[in-house]
């Protein structure tokens, strides 16, 4: 009886282990770099944590459904711009963004409510888009998400009176610290984990493995995917708000193909089949980018200054991603979560990438 009402500590530990195995190292990184790291290292850590929010958000749909989405930068952009409209540059707004409705143009909205509203808006946009696109399957769905990305890009780059066109909106309050980013990353990981072990999560993972068999077992491809798409819209929206308030600027060019490539590269390299894969991918790619960014900006070895030509970083990442695709198709984590050793043993027969 007791075990039913109050699960033992060990059971709780087993249940949460895949999350703890990701969260604890991240927290350690924040603590250690906060104490001993230089400023540029701390910035890299914050960027990494924001990327984790975004890529975990992307994973909720792409990883669980197996459908590649090129459209998630759309929801990030929607949230980032929404937050900019609510919080940015009260003095300049009436001039630079004259097309905004009155309640936005002439006042600023406090940070927390504005962030919540922006994230909700991103989720709503994902839901509406999903209503249409989730009727499609496979490649047609992927290509349509690309169409969504282009639609948003065209609209926001040309809607000058509201988005300032392709110019950057500057002067957003920058309140994102390493700890806030960590909290959001943990939140994203917990949500993604609870979702993927829920009935909805299991259903959509079944559709990923075999659409026909899943549909025959009574799973609605449409609804299971729509739920995942919406949830993932909320999460990348959160990532968008964080990024906007970390950089202090919003520009539509940052939410286009290069960004989409980078986010997908992180997911694929880590392995899109598991939550651990999403997080590991972000860490690996962030470290690579950081190393090559430093090499590109130049280092001195034995008194001699040398640097890699700008653009090497992109070539290396694309090449690395191709190597992963060829030699380790399921990514570094190959669809596995980080489990307790004996748990790993037990589940080996059940879970594979």
């Amino acid at each position, binding site marked *: 009886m007791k075990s039913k009402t109050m699960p033992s500590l060990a059971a709780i530990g087993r249940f949460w282990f895949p999350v703890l195995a990701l969260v604890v190292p991240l927290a350690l990184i924040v603590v250690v770099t906060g104490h001993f790291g230089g400023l540029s290292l701390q910035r890299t850590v914050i960027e990494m944590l924001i990327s984790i929010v975004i890529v975990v958000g992307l994973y909720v749909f792409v990883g669980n459904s197996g459908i590649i989405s090129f459209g998630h930068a759309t929801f990030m952009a929607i949230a980032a711009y929404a937050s900019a409209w609510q919080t940015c540059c009260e003095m300049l707004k009436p001039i630079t963004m004259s097309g905004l409705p009155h309640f936005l143009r002439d006042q600023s909205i406090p940070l927390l409510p504005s962030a919540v509203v922006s994230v909700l808006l991103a989720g709503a946009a994902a839901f509406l888009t999903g209503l249409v696109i989730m009727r499609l399957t496979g490649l047609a769905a992927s290509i349509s998400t690309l169409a969504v990305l282009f639609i948003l890009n065209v609209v926001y780059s040309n809607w000058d009176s509201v988005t300032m066109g392709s110019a950057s909106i500057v002067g957003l309050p920058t309140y994102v610290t390493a700890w806030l980013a960590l909290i959001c990353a943990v939140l994203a990981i917990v949500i993604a984990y609870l979702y993927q072990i829920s009935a909805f999560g299991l259903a959509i993972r079944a559709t990923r493995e075999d659409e026909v068999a899943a549909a025959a077992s009574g799973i609605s491809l449409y609804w299971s995917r729509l739920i995942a798409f919406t949830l993932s819209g909320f999460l990348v929206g959160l990532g968008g708000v964080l990024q906007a308030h970390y950089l202090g600027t919003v520009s539509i060019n940052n939410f286009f193909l290069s960004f989409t*490539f980078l986010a997908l590269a992180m997911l694929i390299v880590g392995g899109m089949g598991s939550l651990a894969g999403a997080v590991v991918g972000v860490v690996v790619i962030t470290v690579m980018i950081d190393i090559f960014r430093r090499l590109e900006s130049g280092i001195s070895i034995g008194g001699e200054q040398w640097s890699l030509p700008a653009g090497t970083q992109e070539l290396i990442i694309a090449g690395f991603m191709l190597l992963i695709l060829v030699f380790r198709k399921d990514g570094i984590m190959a669809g596995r979560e980080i489990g307790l050793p004996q748990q790993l043993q037990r589940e080996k027969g059940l879970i594979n990438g």
Partner: protein
Amino acid sequence: MANIVQVLVDAIALGSLYALVALAIGLVFGVMRLVNFAQADYITIGAYALVVPTASVTPPLLLGALPAALMIGGVLFVVVVLALLTERVAFRPLRNSNPSTLLISSFAVSYFLQNLVMLIHTGRPKSVGIGQGLANAVEIGSVRVPGVQLLTMGVTAGLLVALVLFLKKTPLGIQMRAAAENFQMARLLGMPANRVIALAFAISGLLSGVVSLLLTIQTGTLDLRMGLMPVVYGFFATVIGGMGSLPGAALGGFLVGVASVLLQTYLPADLRPFRDAGVFTLVILILLVRPQGLIVTSAAKERV
């Protein structure tokens, strides 16, 4: 009246260009279920092959300095070799992967090539003058048609006919269609898989090379992203035409081209910048009505 004819000519010329791109994408998709993002970079690199790699904004001509026939041959050669190279290096090892993995790998190849061009040629747009005579308008009745549009239409018509003849009449063409219909079965019946796939890439490279030349003559500029929009339109064309159907791809190409020109012409001036968004919305709407595309093939539905 003349106005409407003019608009139609514009629409068909742009539609032909997109149809070429869509065919290039469709051919490769047919034989290996790969939606090839790198097609955009085939086009870009074909165009950049015209000039000497420098950081200059008005670079000296390389292939572009040759006589017309050699120049065309040179560009086509470069793009075909590039297409074959990407097939060999990046796509052949992944041949048995699912379409999503292939799509992602082509995205990576595209990103790689784009940054390679940027490394060599820098990111600034460059101007290049080839085939200037073609930009002059030809007057037919009361309609003035830029020569390059006539050229585009003529070349597309010629290539379409050649492609149809190739696919229907030659053994390799028939093997290619068989591969598109059912790859496993065709292979069991003796279709040489490597050769047919390589050929599909070669032809898609050839078509891309033609597109790079036409685009360069049309705009007179080189840009890192010059291949992007045509290929994105080409993607949507193949999807609404019906994945795996070549007539569908050509039809889709014409449709998106025509829709684009019509929106450009008849939208109110302040909405015109949003033209592309209109076309893409149209694409999604068509897919809603016909999720398998306009021409449904056996390839559109996954075999159980």
